[in-house]
């Protein structure tokens, strides 16, 4: 539990400037913190094959960067399906209830008990549920959409405008036509030599070490 807590503190420190960070596991000769190792690939099958090898080698803190989402990557990399849909569903239900409450309060409750006066439109009772449906739907959708986008960003730890990976020119090509597997030095299984060897044997075209700026 305590280790989990310090791990989380370290993660927040990685993200927000000025907060204490966890101790680096590896540093270079001139003392800069090592982020990890990245390997580049140029075809989809090659990188997926390599990802399966890295997964089977037991790494946890690693990632595969590709210009487009690769099908079925969660199996090749061995991570869980996202829980995002549940968050979105909750947000949608919240929106629906919010709209129902808003309309019921302003058009029915407040006019029955508050200082306002009830007004009947077209013979529709103030509590006519039918008329509330459109806005219940709209607010449900609105909240779901917010939850989908911002939930996705939050789970991804974005926005994060700077990242050690951006220092590498070959990494920047993932936005064009290259594939990169990056293994972080924080991973318990990380070993500078063995990890590099694993990636090379997995068919990497280049392997390079990524340092952090600070």
């Amino acid at each position, binding site marked *: 539990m305590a280790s989990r807590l310090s791990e989380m503190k370290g993660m927040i420190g990685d993200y927000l400037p000025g907060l204490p960070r966890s101790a680096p*596991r590896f540093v*270079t*000769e001139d003392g800069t913190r090592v982020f990890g190792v990245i390997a580049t690939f140029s075809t989809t099958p090659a990188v997926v094959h390599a990802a399966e090898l890295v997964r089977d080698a037991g790494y946890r803190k690693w990632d595969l960067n590709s210009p487009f989402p690769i*099908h079925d990557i969660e199996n090749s990399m061995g991570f869980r399906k996202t829980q995002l849909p549940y968050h979105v569903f909750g947000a949608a239900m919240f929106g629906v209830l919010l709209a129902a409450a808003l309309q019921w309060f302003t058009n029915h409750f407040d006019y029955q008990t508050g200082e306002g006066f009830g007004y009947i439109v077209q013979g*529709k009772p103030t509590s006519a549920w*039918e008329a509330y449906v459109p806005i219940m739907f709209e607010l449900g959708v609105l909240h779901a959409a917010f939850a989908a986008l911002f939930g996705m960003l939050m789970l991804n730890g974005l926005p994060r405008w700077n990242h050690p990976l951006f220092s590498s*020119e*070959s990494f920047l090509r993932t936005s064009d036509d290259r594939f990169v597997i990056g293994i972080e030095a924080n991973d318990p299984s990380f070993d500078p030599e063995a990890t590099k060897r694993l990636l090379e044997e997995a068919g990497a075209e*280049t392997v390079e070490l990524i*340092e952090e700026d600070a």
Partner: protein
Amino acid sequence: MTHVHVHEEHGGPRIESGYSGVVTPPPPAADHGEGPVMTDAAYQKYLDKLAAHPLLRDDNVRLAEGAGKGIGAVLMGVGLIGLALTVLLAFVFNTTHALAAYEVGVFTVLACCLGALFLVMLLNMLNAYWTATIRRQLENIASLVWVPWLLLLPVAVIEVVSGGVLLRWMGDEYAGNVLLEHKAAFLNWFGFLVRYAIYGVIWIVLANGVLGVIPGVCSLSREQDITGDRWLTRRARRMSGFGLLLFALSVPLASFDFLMSMDFRFFSTMWGVYIFAGAVMSAIALTAIVLSVLRTFGRLTGVVTAEHYHDLGKLMFAFTVFWAYVAFSQYFLIWYGNIPEETNYFLHRTTGDWQPLATIIVIGHFIVPFFLLITRKTKRNTLGLGLMGAFLLVMQILDLVFIIRPMVYVEPGVEGPGYVGWALDAVGVIGVLALFGGALIAKIASGPLIPLRDPRLAKALKHKNYV
């Protein structure tokens, strides 16, 4: 803390990053031919591979000889008994009520067939490859459209001969009514019969064709099983384009003729869409039931997978929601406008004795399936989707009960039989459904369970939902 040596040379080869117009060398002469037509030899190779495919062996994609005969016979028997009881009760209890019960059954079956016919044509048009493995069951249902059409014949005859039972406008009861006189150009027994015949021609020809003259969309698919001619797929697609047009013209009119005109004062432009939405939903529901039963009995293993179920479930979900959207819009606009001719329809059904049924339909036809079908688990589960199909089919029956049955005891001062009458309703509906079930089993057993030589079958077998 470990020190590692950092190599001087940073990164791989220098990356070239250009503006547009920077020329990359042409890709190596690719081995994929962009030829618009595949050679027959190459296609034959594909067919040979299909024939040798381990998943497509006979004991997986065909029912055993004589399978389903027993249960089919039982269903037929139940059907005949049910219909006999309905006829009996029509004489001893109430003719109108018996006819209404029978019609609920017939229109449920007709909805399944027409919905399936629509889906077959739509999937042909969309060229959606993943549907290749489930399309045959839709075709089986659609090609039986002649059964409910034929079952409607007694209805049409009884209505015309006895001068209006449920279609009261046929009788003398309302002679001289201003509205009816205005509508006489459409609401007359002769036009009614002619249209009934035309609907039959359109639907049966679209589904089954005319033997040896015009092919139907379902018979084209079966023909492909034998000949392996891939151009039949394109022919079916072309037919579907025109077919959908004829479908869109005939189904709403039929729904006006048989259902909307039960109350000749009532009118709703949405009516055709409403009936259509329920029909497609029930077709999907019935397909899910059929596929689940086949899978439970060890057929279609690896052919119709959880992935196909997932997509079928999505369609089921979509049409449940679409039905709700259409039904709500229709109700809502009539409720809001509050014009007597229209509102009477809902007033009769959402107040008094029929109110509980209205609530059940709102909950059962929309809210419950919405929350159950939105989950991935239900959609991917054989039993789950099959049960959802059965549940939605029941809801479709209740929806038709909601449309038809309140028209039985409408005379002022006439009390309905209350719950006693439900027995007659059950007998009428079960009779028709069992009869159709027997016919469907025979149809399914009569050929392969999938289009065995569909050009998209190989790809459909590999279908997978990402995300």
